[in-house]
């Protein structure tokens, strides 16, 4: 989506001054994915490629349901299937719809060096503005969830937009609209948190003692949340337990940048004043010999 004229851009990559954000009425939104209601039908994958007009290459079957095997530049959401034993002797089949988490504190946006290639809107959606993307892959390093994929065709990064174009005109994301079991819901962040907690409570009543809402605080919360049957162990469905933007990235794109810049400029300024104070080193004998 084009971004600046939406007047609700609260954060913009590689930009040091405020962006147009006068339009503040938009509520924070969130998508809630209820793992316990998902039947793995992949209608969301189809809706995603349909709405976004994406056609991935036909891949190869690797012997499990996952297809494609992983997120790709043209598959922005993928159902991942996990056969796990949360407890000894209890086999469970868990299904998670993978995709961008739309972090409140997005690592991709922090890492991106290209002004305006990544924006965050007032409603919380993190969007790639692909015409500004330079293909450096820094967003890949910034993301704690391994979501951005860079196309081999055009060297641009792609990921789920949370259907920012649909949401901007008051519609729910395509995956939400199509989900036949109601496993994906969409609404304000507050209402989705409340609904997610209610669902987790229901699951706990039904015997999933560790059911809970996955809305990790390490990235400021996310605008895509999960109701997990085993929230105590999100690694069962390949989610990080306490995701944060890597300290490497925070160091590299945080404090190091202004300090080093000041250091380099300082060195030149120091040299200038040193010269003016001490003067050049010259051979004194030159005059006598000349």
């Amino acid at each position: 989506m084009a971004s600046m004229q939406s007047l609700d851009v609260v954060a913009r990559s590689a930009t040091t001054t405020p962006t147009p954000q006068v339009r503040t009425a938009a509520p924070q939104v969130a998508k809630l994915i209820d793992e316990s209601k998902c039947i793995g039908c992949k209608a969301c994958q189809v809706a995603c490629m349909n709405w976004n007009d994406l056609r991935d290459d036909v891949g190869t079957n690797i012997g499990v349901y996952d297809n494609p095997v992983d997120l790709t530049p043209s598959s922005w959401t993928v159902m991942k299937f996990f056969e796990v034993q949360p407890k000894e002797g209890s086999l469970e089949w868990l299904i998670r719809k993978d995709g961008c988490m739309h972090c409140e504190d997005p690592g991709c946006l922090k890492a991106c060096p290209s002004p305006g290639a990544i924006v965050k809107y007032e409603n919380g959606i993190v969007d790639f503005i692909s015409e500004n993307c330079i293909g450096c892959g820094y967003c890949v390093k910034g993301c704690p969830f391994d979501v951005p994929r860079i196309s081999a065709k055009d060297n641009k990064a792609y990921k789920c937009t949370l259907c920012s174009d649909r949401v901007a005109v008051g519609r729910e994301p395509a995956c939400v609209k199509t989900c036949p079991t109601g496993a994906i819901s969409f609404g304000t962040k507050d209402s989705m948190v409340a609904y997610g907690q209610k669902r987790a409570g229901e699951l706990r009543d039904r015997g999933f003692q560790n059911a809970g809402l996955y809305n990790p605080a390490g990235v400021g919360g996310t605008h895509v949340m999960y109701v997990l049957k085993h929230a105590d162990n999100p690694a069962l469905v390949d989610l990080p337990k306490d995701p944060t933007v890597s300290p490497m990235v925070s160091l590299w794109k945080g404090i190091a940048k202004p300090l080093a810049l000041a250091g380099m400029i300082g060195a030149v300024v120091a040299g200038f004043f040193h010269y003016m104070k001490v003067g050049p080193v010259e051979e004194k004998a030159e005059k006598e010999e000349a």
Partner: protein
Amino acid sequence: MARMLQRYDDRERMNHWFIALMFVLAGLSGLAFFHPSLFFLSNLFGGGSWARILHPFMGVLMVLAFLGLAAKLWRANVVTDADREWKKHMGDMLRGNKAALPPVGKYNYGQKMVFWAMLASLLVLLVTGVVFWRPWFAPYFPIDVLRVAALLHSIAAVVLIAATIVHVYAALWVKGTTRAMTRGTVSEDWARLNHALWHKEVTGGR
């Protein structure tokens, strides 16, 4: 006219200036990604994507050319006891008090440190840069490795730029130095004042 002493031959000088050109190009394109306030530098290369595409090629050429020069000069840059003595007089050097400095050979301690800092930072830049070079090599490394590589790459770049600032400043500060690289020769007085042992070596004490 005062006698002139050959300090660098043609090959060394052309090699040096090729490195310098590549340093400027790789440096400007790299700084564009380092801080948002410097992103405008990418316009010099035809925009962000072109700066991203060209930067590694210019960087690799810089490192290879430097290795060519270093193969010839590294022996003269080995730190000796005389350098450790000179190091104690660093303050005199900075105050421009040349008389208090012990005599040095072809390079003084400061120059040798610049040489090794450049060599070390260039090697780090090469290795880490290859690791996250898109689209060719980055896909073969795990994300954790890419993160460390990017951090080390930018630290090494700052070290290289700082060393180069010292290098350029010293050449401008000590008069008669730049012609060693522009013309290949230096005056005998310059050599006597700044590199007395080297002067003795090339003139045989005459």
